[in-house]
């Protein structure tokens, strides 16, 4: 048995080990974010049935209580349970994130698809309107919308959603332009398909992957936007918990009881990070499929 062969075998073993390590990393990169997101969404959805203290119950004895068996995340400056407040705040964050993206996706997707498909005047008017929205200072628009009448959460969703519409419209339009010029669309015309049917059954399925990836990323952006607005006091009014207002309210105590700010901030950070990672993974997987086309 020559040394060469042994060396070769060792090299094979090494690459094999490296390959296995990489597959473990790949596995974790996909499933760890998904596990966290399932946990977060599950907790937010089931918050009413979880064995938690009420998020608004105050207890003088628990003011700035350190994390422990009674209060897992500690207590805030009014003696409320930070874990319960974080979970209920997550509910608002997720509803705001998904709601805003839904508005952006539906309105922007529709406007962009019609603009890309019909072109001409439809396109100039639609994309001109989008440019106007883009040119508006986002914070001013958000303040204007949230200062109107109506339920606070709905206004926040609407404000963020409106800001998202132009970006979704552009993505939808760009992809519609790509696919609308393909010959299968011409073939659909040639067989006598109506415009509405062509958009729905020929173009729309091709818009799903890019819009899906973008939606995942934008849910993260919307959650941060909601947190920022609530930090500024533009989101749900107190005492309802929101991640941004929780951080804002406890700023003064950050040196005495860092966990009061740290836990909501960490949950916000991890949720946004994992949403981005999940979006990345989905887009990578779709790209692989795309290359096969």
């Amino acid at each position, binding site marked *: 048995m020559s040394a060469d062969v042994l060396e070769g075998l060792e090299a094979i073993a090494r690459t094999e080990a490296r390959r296995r390590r990489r597959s473990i990393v790949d596995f974790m990169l996909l499933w760890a974010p998904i596990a966290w997101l399932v946990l977060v969404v599950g907790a937010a959805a089931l918050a009413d049935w979880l064995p938690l203290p009420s998020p608004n119950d105050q207890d003088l004895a628990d003011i700035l209580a350190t994390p422990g068996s009674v209060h897992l995340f500690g207590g805030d400056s009014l003696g409320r349970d930070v874990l319960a407040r974080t979970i209920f705040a997550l509910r608002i964050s997720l509803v705001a994130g998904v709601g805003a993206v839904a508005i952006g996706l539906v309105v922007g997707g529709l406007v962009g698809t019609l603009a890309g498909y019909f072109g001409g005047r439809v396109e100039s008017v639609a994309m001109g309107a989008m440019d106007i929205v883009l040119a508006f200072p986002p914070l001013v628009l958000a303040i204007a919308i949230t200062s109107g009448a109506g339920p606070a959460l709905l206004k926040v969703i609407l404000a963020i959603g409106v800001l998202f519409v132009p970006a979704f419209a552009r993505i939808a339009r760009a992809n519609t332009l790509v696919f609308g010029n393909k010959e299968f669309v*011409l073939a659909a015309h*040639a*067989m006598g398909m109506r415009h509405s049917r062509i958009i729905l059954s020929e173009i729309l399925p091709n818009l799903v992957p890019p819009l899906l990836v973008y939606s995942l990323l934008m849910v993260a952006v919307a959650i941060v936007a909601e947190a920022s607005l609530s930090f500024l006091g533009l989101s749900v009014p107190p005492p309802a918990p929101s991640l941004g207002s929780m951080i804002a309210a406890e700023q003064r105590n950050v040196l005495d009881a860092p966990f009061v700010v740290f836990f909501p901030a960490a949950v916000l950070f991890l949720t946004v990070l994992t949403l981005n990672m999940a979006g990345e993974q989905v887009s990578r997987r779709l790209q692989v499929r795309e290359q096969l086309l």
Partner: protein
Amino acid sequence: MPDMIENQPHTVEPILRVERLVKQYAVRRRTVHAVSDVSFDVMPGETLGLVGESGCGKSTVGRAILQLPPPTSGRVVFEGHNLCGLTGQALRAIRPRLQMVFQDPISSLNPRRHIADIVAAPLTLSFGIAPAERDRLVREMLEAVGLEAKTVWSMHPHELSGGQCQRVSLARALILKPRLIVCDEAVSSLDVSVQAQILNLLEDMKARFDLSLLFIAHDLAVVKNISDRIAVMYLGKLCEIAPSDELYAGPRHPYTKALLSSIPSPDPKAKGSTDPAIEGDLPSPFHPPSGCRFRTRCPRAQPLCTQQEPPMRVLAQDHFTACHFPLEAS
């Protein structure tokens, strides 16, 4: 070319008559003269080859016939109906009888749909077809174009080869039982061996479904076998129309001759053509040359060619040429 129509002794009505077709596009305030005054007929059961180099407007003719988009002016009379000016439901009602097969086999098929759905799509547009009956028709049509229905049924286009995709495109076109199919460079992007298969398939389908074909290609060699007659286009105009054999044996238009002599011979010992190849590039379709459009590259050009546009003339039985100084019949 009204004299052509009068001189041709028609016993049957043409299935497609294209009259004075013009297609212009506005590109940044300038006008592209893509197709200028093109007229021809396609008889029932006939295959008309339409050839010309890239950019001469032959695909535009094909699409203008299907009104995708409609021509700027002219008439497209299909089975006695002028398609130009028809809109909405009236046009959609005729569309199934007039189908098209495109060049790019991949982009002709929606990447997100199953093969069976793609072929069935035309059927779902008209009401009253039971799912079982639809599946049966799709299965029959897939088998007819030489695909194993069971295998490809739930595949996606990217899982098939170019030739197979082109078979699917053909199945989709045929399932509506059309009378005329416009094949726009339908084999140009395929390997030579696959080209032959698809051409044979087209011939079979033509006989089986009693079709007429308008076969658009840039390659005279491909068109030669499949076509009954061939029309040659140059820069948006027709140069010559003649029966296939006659065109190959004795081209009368200098451009046709140049195209023919550019076909490489498969025999390595054969002497190359001694005719000088035509030089230069296609003139700009923004400003086509005055008179005869080919004069800038024509070895026989005379002053007359600059001044006057050559009319389409009958030079022999069914042989039409638009040239002031046609070549002698060999």
